[in-house]
């Protein structure tokens, strides 16, 4: 995908063939300094900061490629918002390899922690569970639940690797657990696979068909090389398969699974879920907290059905089982239902037009879209309100804000009336 990763692969291949005797004791990253002289590709920009040449354009084209692959067809693809995801982590001997610094499992653990936090941030009503594969046996590390801290704490304690990996055992275990969840939930599995083989007790093809019948969407991220069985699993169940080239690529791949994937409509039954919207307890009130089993003062939430106290939201009431949420939690998922259209690129010839030159300010940050020195910077335009935006605002709007400032600033624009429906 990026030039840096490509160069690194080539460097590895060359080492085996030619330069064993000369540069045999140099690592690949050291070789990038001697061979490629990475400092020469740096440049100072107008505020005196060092930047690689054309980094911004590269970043932006990467971002747009990603956006296009994510929102392939129309804007309103149905997404599975209530997700039950199992993360399967391979703790076989291959996970202790050191091609990812300091070791594959350390990199995996670090990014799984970040992924879990991002997942709960983007999907507050969903739940996660962790399964590990070690010595050919799959074990459930944490049960499916909605509290990020409990998963992260449990994961960080058990990171020792040994033995073989068994994909079939993991899938069987996950299938058993996911058959117990409510029918309106979307069932997903994310496998982080480091090994190059799988030692299975039976026919893995049968297990894959079983997962397909149970409507479980399995995705795999490989850390070593592409494997047929993983590819087959993902194709059969409708998931995605990718292999990480290096640590930053792995981080990108795993975070791609945080936003909800396009839902296949028959997979989950639509249902009305009863939920409570608790009010915050008054400042001085004293009650027994149901999660800590001790008396606490103020600052909690009261279940509207059974009046038990809960510490944080979202959660399930421990006394009556009612799901407790607050409306911001639901609102956090609304941007998946009302996505904004990607902005169109503006050809540089438009920007250079001397007649319209004065008007070229990015509508979001009021910065001049033309670079200093009168070179046209890259700009994008909203297809609905026709306002220009700079690249930074474009990325911020699509990744974080999910509102077009231009469409929101004019009441009678088409976008505004569409939202009023």
């Amino acid at each position, binding site marked *: 995908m990026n030039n840096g990763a490509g160069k690194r692969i080539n460097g590895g291949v060359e080492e085996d063939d030619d330069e064993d005797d000369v540069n045999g004791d140099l690592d690949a990253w050291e070789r990038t300094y001697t061979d490629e002289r990475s400092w020469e590709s740096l440049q100072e920009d107008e505020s005196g900061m060092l930047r690689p040449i054309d980094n911004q354009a590269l970043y932006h084209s990467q971002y747009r490629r990603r956006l296009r692959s994510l929102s392939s067809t129309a804007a309103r693809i149905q997404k599975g918002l209530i997700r039950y995801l199992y993360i399967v982590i391979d703790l076989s001997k291959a996970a202790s390899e050191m091609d990812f610094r300091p070791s594959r499992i350390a990199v995996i653990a670090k990014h799984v922690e970040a992924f879990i936090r991002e997942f709960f*941030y983007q999907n507050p009503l969903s739940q996660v569970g962790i399964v590990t594969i070690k010595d050919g046996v799959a074990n459930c590390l944490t049960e499916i639940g909605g509290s990020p801290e409990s998963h992260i704490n449990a994961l960080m304690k058990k990171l020792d690797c040994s033995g073989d990996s068994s994909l079939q055992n993991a899938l069987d275990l996950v299938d058993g657990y996911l058959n117990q969840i409510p029918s309106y939930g979307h069932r997903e599995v994310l496998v982080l696979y480091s090994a190059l083989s799988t030692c299975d007790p039976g026919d893995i093809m049968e297990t894959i068909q079983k997962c397909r019948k149970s409507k479980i969407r399995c995705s795999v991220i490989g850390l070593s090389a592409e494997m047929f069985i993983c590819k087959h699993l993902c194709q059969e169940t409708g998931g995605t398969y990718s292999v990480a080239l290096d640590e930053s690529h792995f981080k990108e791949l795993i975070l791609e699974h945080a*936003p909800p994937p396009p839902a296949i409509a028959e997979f989950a039954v639509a*249902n009305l879920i009863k939920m409570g919207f608790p009010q915050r307890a008054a400042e001085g009130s004293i009650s027994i907290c149901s999660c800590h089993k001790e008396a606490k003062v103020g600052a909690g939430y009261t279940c509207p059905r059974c009046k038990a106290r809960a510490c944080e939201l979202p959660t399930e009431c421990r006394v009556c089982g009612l799901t407790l949420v607050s409306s911001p939690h639901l609102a956090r998922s609304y941007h998946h239902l009302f996505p904004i259209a990607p902005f169109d690129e503006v050809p540089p010839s438009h920007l250079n037009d001397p007649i319209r030159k004065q008007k070229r300010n990015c509508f979001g*940050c009021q*910065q001049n879209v033309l670079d200093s020195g009168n070179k046209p910077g890259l700009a994008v335009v909203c297809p609905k309100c026709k306002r220009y935006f700079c690249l930074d605002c474009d990325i*911020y709007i699509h990744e974080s804000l999910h509102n077009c400032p231009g469409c*929101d600033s004019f009441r009678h624009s088409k976008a505004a009336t569409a939202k009023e429906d």
Partner: protein
Amino acid sequence: MASAPSKLYADDVNLVVVLLDTNPFFWSSSSLSFSQFLSHIVSLLSVKKQKQIKANQDERFIGFCIFLIYEQLSKEEPEGRIKSSLFSGSLSMALCYIQRAFHSGALHPHPRILCLQGSPDGAEQYVAIMNAIFSAQRSEVPIDSCYIGAQNSAFLQQASYITGGVHHKPQNLDGLFQYLMTIFATDLHSRSFIHLPKPVGVDFRASTIDMGYICSVCLSIFCKQHKKCSTCGSVFGQGQSEAALASDKKRKTPET
């Protein structure tokens, strides 16, 4: 999507982005006249400007605060019978501007947003405002809000609560400048040891219902059980394909 990277804040630099409500429908019926209101704001800013110059700050951002106000004066154009003003648009612009401030160098100012609103909330902006609030929470930008209208603004209360800002509804509008100076002019570092008005009870409940039913597809809230979701059209308790088949059959029979 990635969480906000760690930031290095310059201790004494503050960037305050002020959003003013310029809805003529509100100002024509308010007890405080718009020119008086502006005089309060301008005096607040001139005091802040003085403080900032003493602390040796980047001049660009001082000038910018005022610039954005003039921008808002011309851009907020609420019309017709709808009395709310375009809060979501101005909040989005403010956040884009703050992102630019984050890119401005290794030590950048501590940003926050101050909103002064008098018009009532417009329900059609709910999704856009919530998106902006979550983005501000992500970037750690507190939103302070001062409501100078008649009723209460649930949007402003939620915004300040979620982002960690201060919300206040002044009792006496003639003394607005004093409220602004004592509550909203404090910078973020000093807030940990200055006693500010606490939220009495932020009402998060979606239109004051305690318990409701949520559609699992589109997350819309209902107070009673229904057979079908009015927002997304999903039939409850059935798979989607079966429902589509059933409605197709219904459509075909009247024609034959």
